């Protein structure tokens, strides 16, 4: 039947991308429908029971500022919180939490169910209907046709999903959930390029059969910090993880059974992630390593299942059991669910705009693993951007685009739409060229204005953040204009604090730049310096201590912006530009960059080609100006 209620936005999928897309679209006030294969797995974690981690923590916090749910959800359901890289500079601090997977997805479902403007239905979408280059609806396996103006597709690993355990092969979208076998054909017939990727997961072990005493304990931070700037009450447990090691026997077992690995027997030919290799890959490629770390992580506060991080495998069940039992502490281990590899369809993301809208079909947005990424956080951050833009498309508002100099989300999307990906794409801090500025700690400070102006943040929240910002600036100015003098008391104190004495009148900012200094120490030197909340102290310290480097990055950003601001008109005809090689022309026509800056990031587009483009655009621009004058 043609369903009588017409929706503005339909979100296909209830994974991490789908949840954020559906929530934000409904929160922005447009009539939204989520269609997903299995309601009980809304917000499910297909793989590791953790949110955040290096560079991913940044994404979670950005999603939070843009009005998303992931940060709030983990703050309510985390089992252990940790800030990674605390011993290194603040630019690379990253939050991570172990999650209670069950509690996580239940709470997410609860939030969705309590969201205005949002309907949720368990149905599998088989077809996307488009007319005249515009989306008009979807058809499901039940034969229902839903009409809408915009669709966000977030199908994760489900499209033509195929699971491998040893030499056995099953059709599935994840563990034992049914795959979506028709949707990618529909996307193909809409003209999209679809190809395959693979990933894998680890066996889940029974905690009752693990000798934890033989393993090293890895607790979370004693003073856990929540992800969301909105979280006020925060009281979560600190459940430990454990560290185990493979050994030479483990490696031998794996090497002897490589013929049982579909990765090595040629059954799976698609590309998997290099940063998250299977244990087979690790043992083969890093033959010289005598041991590999395995992290044993709780999945659920109330369950025995333990996730064995570092053991992604597609080896057969028997081999899995054998190599597991070769490890210290796991001699008697029982497998509850085996590890497996999964192969699935994804859409080449260079066919998307920075809004995640498909270039060739208005109203059709793609987000999450379908775009070749991997990871919950990568999915969520795309989900929110696609959801916002789908709603804005309905509301006929300007697109919401996050740039590389603003957020990791911007880096992620720009990389995807500009370079595409050959392996499942994961975020790294090194992908963000301005990472000294794009820190986790200042996420809300740097993005509040953008979020608020787009209507993604309430006025109260914005004003609160703005106040913090002003306080930071004020404090910095104060430190720059408050002086201490080289008298006996000051110098005595300086020596006490393990610092050098001063010989001339010195401002406090200068003292702060000394490695050993922090705000509290300053207050010992300058007695009347007012106390401020610890977050302000931290930001002031970072801003002053890194001033030189931060200024350098700000300059780089200015330069970057100059090229981003040179827009290339949509539908620009590259064949008119003399002097570009066919290779370069081909690439430019395929990617259709929105700006000169983006063009320069396309692999294979030479600096010389960019120079030519710049001059050409200038020429036609001048001509236009002349003509209108």
């Amino acid at each position, binding site marked *: 039947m043609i369903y009588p209620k017409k929706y503005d936005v339909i979100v296909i999928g209830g994974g991490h991308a789908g949840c954020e897309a559906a929530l934000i679209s409904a929160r922005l006030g447009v009539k939204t429908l989520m269609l997903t294969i299995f309601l009980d797995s809304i917000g499910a974690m297909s793989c590791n029971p953790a949110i955040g981690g*290096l*560079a991913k923590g940044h994404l979670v916090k950005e999603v939070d500022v843009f009005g998303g749910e992931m940060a709030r959800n983990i703050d309510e359901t985390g089992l252990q919180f940790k800030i*990674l*890289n605390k011993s*290194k*500079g*603040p*630019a*690379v601090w990253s939050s991570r939490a172990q999650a209670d997977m069950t509690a996580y997805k239940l709470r997410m479902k609860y939030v969705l169910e309590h969201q205005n403007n949002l309907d949720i239905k368990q149905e599998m979408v088989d077809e996307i209907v488009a007319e005249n280059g515009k989306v008009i609806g979807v058809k499901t396996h039940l034969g229902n046709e839903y009409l809408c103006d915009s669709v966000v597709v977030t199908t994760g690993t489900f499209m033509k999903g195929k699971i491998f355990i040893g030499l056995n092969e099953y059709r599935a979208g994840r563990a034992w959930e049914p795959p979506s076998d028709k949707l990618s054909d529909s996307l193909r017939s809409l003209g999209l390029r679809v190809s395959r990727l693979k990933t894998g997961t680890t066996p889940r072990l029974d905690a009752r059969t693990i000798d934890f005493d033989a393993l090293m304990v890895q607790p979370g931070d004693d003073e856990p910090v929540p992800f969301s700037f909105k979280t006020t009450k925060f009281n979560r447990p600190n459940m430990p993880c454990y560290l185990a090691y493979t050994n030479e026997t483990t490696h031998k077992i794996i090497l002897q059974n490589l013929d049982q690995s579909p990765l090595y027997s040629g059954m799976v030919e698609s590309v998997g992630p*290099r*940063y*998250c*290799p299977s244990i087979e*890959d*690790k043992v083969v*490629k*890093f033959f010289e*390593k005598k041991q*590999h*770390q395995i*992290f044993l992580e709780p999945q659920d506060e109330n369950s025995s299942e333990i996730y064995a*991080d*570092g053991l*992604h495998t597609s080896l057969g069940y028997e081999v899995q059991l054998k190599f597991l039992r070769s490890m210290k502490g796991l001699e008697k281990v029982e497998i509850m669910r085996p590890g497996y590899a999964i192969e699935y369809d994804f859409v080449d993301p260079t066919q998307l705009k920075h809004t995640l809208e498909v270039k060739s079909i208005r109203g059709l947005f793609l987000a999450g693993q379908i775009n070749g990424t991997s990871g919950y956080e990568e999915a969520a951050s795309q989900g929110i951007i696609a959801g916002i833009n789908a709603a804005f498309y309905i509301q006929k508002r300007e697109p919401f685009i996050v740039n590389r100099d603003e957020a990791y989300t911007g880096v992620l999307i720009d990389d995807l739409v500009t*370079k595409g990906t050959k392996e499942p794409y994961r975020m*790294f*801090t*090194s*992908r963000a*060229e301005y*990472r*000294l500025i794009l820190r986790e700690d200042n996420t809300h400070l740097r993005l509040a204005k953008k979020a608020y102006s787009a209507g993604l943040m309430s006025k109260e929240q914005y004003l609160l953040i703005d106040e913090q910002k002003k306080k930071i600036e004020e404090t910095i100015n104060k430190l720059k204009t408050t002086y201490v003098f080289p008298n006996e008391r000051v110098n005595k104190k300086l020596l006490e604090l393990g610092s050098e004495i001063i010989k001339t009148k010195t401002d406090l900012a200068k003292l702060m730049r000394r490695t050993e200094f922090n705000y509290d120490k300053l207050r010992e030197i300058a007695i009347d310096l007012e106390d401020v909340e610890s977050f302000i102290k931290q930001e002031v310290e970072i801003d002053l201590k*890194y001033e030189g*480097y931060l200024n*350098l*990055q700000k300059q780089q950003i200015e330069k970057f912006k100059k090229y981003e601001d040179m827009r290339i008109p949509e539908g620009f005809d590259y064949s008119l530009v*003399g*002097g570009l*090689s*066919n*290779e*370069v022309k081909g690439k430019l026509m395929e990617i259709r960059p929105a700006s000169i800056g983006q063009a320069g990031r396309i*692999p294979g587009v*030479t*600096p*010389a*080609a960019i*120079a*030519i483009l710049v*001059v050409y655009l200038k020429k036609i621009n001048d001509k236009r100006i002349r003509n209108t004058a």
Partner: protein
Amino acid sequence: MYDDDIIAAIATGYAVAAIGIVRVSGRGSLELLEKIFTKKPPYEHRKIYYGHITDSNGEIIDEVLVSVFKAPNSYTGEDSFEISCHGGLSVLNFVLERVLEAGARMAQPGEFTKRAFLNGKIDLSQAEAVEKIISSKSKRALFIAQRQLAGKFSSKIEKIREKILFLMAENEVIIDHPEEDISSIETKEKLNMLIDIKKQLKAILKSSQYGDVIFEGVVLAIIGKPNVGKSSLLNILTGTSRSIVTDIPGTTRDVVSGNFNIKGIPCTILDTAGIRETNDVIENIGVQRSKKALKEADIVIAMFDASNMLDERDTGIIDYAVKHSNKVIGVINKTDIKKANFMLPFDKIVEISCKNETGVDKLEDTIADSVINLESDTDIVSLNANQKESLKKGIDICDKLIDDFKRGADPALIGVDFISLADSIDDIIGKISNEDMLDTMFKKFCIGK
């Protein structure tokens, strides 16, 4: 910026050979070929066609072979072709005129190379080399430029680039994978690698200075009191009688210059007015100019007369030379009359006789050795001012990084410095991208929590 209109020129490199070549490149050049060539299309890439070039009336100008190169695989990256004519220079010129008449324009010097560079066919250092090949004045220079064009220098930088990538990946893996037990190399080893990179960059800078010597040449200035034989020496070295020789002290009153070539090094030699106090206005101006020449010179040849004792003016010259130049060659002339019975405080001293032309070879060797002190020329490169600037910047950043490592600085900041280092290498040959770094990272480290 350039347009891709059709350009043409006689490929001068072949001018001396029995056949001459007219090179044509640009968008639509193959249609142009069709107009002037008896063999009609299809033209395939890298194929050679036999036929005749005809004028607009169809009259034959020359019997030729035409090699066709198609975009993007041609030297310039554009559609292009080369006409090999066997006639002499005049036929060659007729063919060129015909090409121009059919719609091409004369290429500016180096324009083919510029296009090749703009189309990403060659990197900056190679482009630099092509220009040098065109302007090479000696075989030695040609050899050096050709090595550079062949990418010998690029591959050297490439090796340095790999090392930088490795160190960057080392740094990033510490940041992005803090929980991995990655057996990363010791800080000390990283430090050594950095020191080595710096050393190599410095060596390249040095060899680019040799490149300047080969391609730009050196300036020599002869000083000495009047009548020691300065003009005579200039005449011998340049093989001319440019400078007037008399036995009247103070003959040369202004700077006279001449050019010659020692072992492929282009030299300009300046014969100066003997530096002496004088009341003669004109000679005085000459003396002032001599002093100026002296400052500009790469090498100063301080000349003395073996047949006389050193006097105050000679010691004045010695002082002056030592003070104003760090490359002084002492020359004792007129050894045919008498062996010198004095000592000079220079590292390099050559005894000659301009009259008998003895010792001049030795002097030439000494000059050559003091500007290029290398076992072989294989390391010499030619870089432009920007590239040299980038090298210097790279060396400075190496220093900063060495300091970073010694202090155990924050890896996030080290990362910033590495990016600057990579940027400076970029400026010399090409880009280091994020992807390159990640590639290196995944190749070297087993990452996979």
